[in-house]
């Protein structure tokens, strides 16, 4: 478990350097300097950008400030996706820092959810945790936890406290081998093409014959189009040991190289999101 802890810490403390620039459409009283920030991969944009908001509001008129939202190269960024997923989906092939545009006007009602306070983020986060546990343990673990335990999970994320978070999260990551482990693996395959934002299906970690399945098996069965032929041997050789937590996958996969089309973003360690930018052939 000690080895796993290192991996978990590396995943938790993963950062993306970003440069926030105010949209030229916004009217300012003074020139707005860009704002640089290291974004935690496992967190949410609206949770970690208070300083960005304050920075730009200083050069704007008070009455012009409605809900802040972000955009990258014309695409509104969905705050309810973990930052790492957003980056992998939209900008993983571009040079750092990640250049994000900040808006205060013309909120894209048909694209983005509103985020009027931190309690909205908390509700969304807990909803994801709950859904992941519904898949892993039929919701029994999350439902047996007390309200204060749920709060601890959230506070751990909000305040970037690894130990506080994992003290509770380890219960959600319990893999009862005598009961066949997780009932289903909680995962989502995000995609940028088409209407459908992600693909989510039921997948058991153990085959009917009793073999522990790997990430490669999951991809082969559910998303054969996402695997490039020459990359096949590597994912298939990956053994996913759920006791190591799915967080391991981020380091275990080879770095993306053309025409590789796989990146991972384990979210808070309790679910895994695979971002697959679809490349032209």
């Amino acid at each position: 478990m000690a080895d796993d802890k290192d991996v978990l810490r590396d995943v938790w403390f993963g950062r993306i350097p970003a440069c926030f620039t105010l949209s030229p459409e916004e009217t300012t009283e003074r020139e707005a300097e860009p704002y640089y920030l290291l974004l935690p991969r496992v967190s949410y944009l609206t949770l970690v950008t208070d300083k960005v908001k304050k920075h730009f509001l200083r050069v704007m008129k008070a009455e012009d400030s409605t809900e802040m939202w972000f955009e990258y190269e014309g695409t509104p960024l969905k705050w309810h996706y973990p930052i790492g997923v957003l980056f992998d989906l939209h900008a993983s092939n571009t040079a750092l820092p990640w250049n994000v545009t900040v808006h205060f006007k013309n909120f894209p009602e048909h694209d983005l959810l509103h985020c009027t306070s931190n309690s909205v983020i908390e509700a969304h986060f807990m909803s994801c945790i709950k859904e992941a546990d519904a898949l892993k343990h039929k919701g029994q673990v999350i439902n047996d936890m007390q309200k204060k335990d749920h709060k601890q999970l959230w506070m751990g994320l909000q305040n970037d406290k690894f130990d506080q978070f994992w003290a509770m999260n380890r219960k959600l990551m319990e893999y009862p081998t005598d009961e066949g482990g997780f009932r289903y693996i909680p995962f989502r395959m995000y995609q940028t093409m088409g209407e459908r934002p992600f693909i989510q299906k039921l997948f058991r970690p153990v085959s009917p014959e009793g073999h522990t399945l790997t990430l490669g098996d999951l991809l082969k069965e559910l998303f054969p189009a996402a695997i490039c032929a020459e990359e096949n041997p590597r994912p298939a050789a990956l053994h996913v040991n759920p006791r190591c937590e799915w967080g391991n996958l981020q380091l275990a996969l080879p770095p993306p190289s053309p025409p590789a089309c796989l990146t991972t973003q384990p979210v808070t360690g309790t679910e895994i999101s695979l971002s697959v930018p679809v490349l032209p052939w």
Partner: protein
Amino acid sequence: MLICAVVLELSSIKTPQHVKRTRDLVQAKVSGGCPHKLRGQYNEIMMFMAGERNPASCYLDERTFRLCCQLFLQHSETIQDGWSWEQIKGTDEGFMKKTVLMPVKPSFLHKQHECSMQDENMVTDDVQANVEDETAGVQAVCEIHAVLRYEYHVLYSCSYQIPVLYFRASTLDGRPLSLEEVWSNVHPNYRQRLQQGPWDTLTQQEHPLLGQPFFMLHPCRTEEFMKPALDLAQAENKRMNYVVTWLSVVGPVVRLDVPLSYSTEVSAPD
């Protein structure tokens, strides 16, 4: 006193009609302004009736969901209730969809969005003056309503293995309603119940198949109200259409009417 009345009704039942009748009875009492605790009492009665039998599964597999929907849609066609099936291209997944135009008092929108008043379907000064001359009862009839457009989607959740209700609402000129406006349109009897948990309520969510903002009734409590109904149906050796029963309970919370004929006319899938 109320509990006695309901139990007496239940004691004379033999058929699953009573599930519907009991629900109607309870709903009639609830809409008369009784406390929301009534729902908990209803559940207790149902549990009592279900007795010691093996509980029926509260869960629904995807294939059964689709079959229930097919039967539901057939009846919708018959009574012209406006539901349709949306298939996701290239998959066997899909969802049920219905759009409804809903009149609300002009003041509903006026309160929430001052600036968008001008283009709404507001009464003119002349008409307003005439309306005010009438008696209260007639005034209610003559009042010209603003109209909202509600679009309901019934999806299957593979995580929870139950159906989930998504919806979006807008004014006729396309302005999406805020969560506050949607909340104020929730029946008062349900509001307190819905406010009991941060993730156990009505929230904005990304539609998992369309990727756009919708509102969703969180599915966590589905088991709570489906279990008694399912147990009872099993106890009577009758099968029920899960989607019909479920939608009849959750629909009214967000102003979706599910005519009673669904409960009598739609069968369970084989």
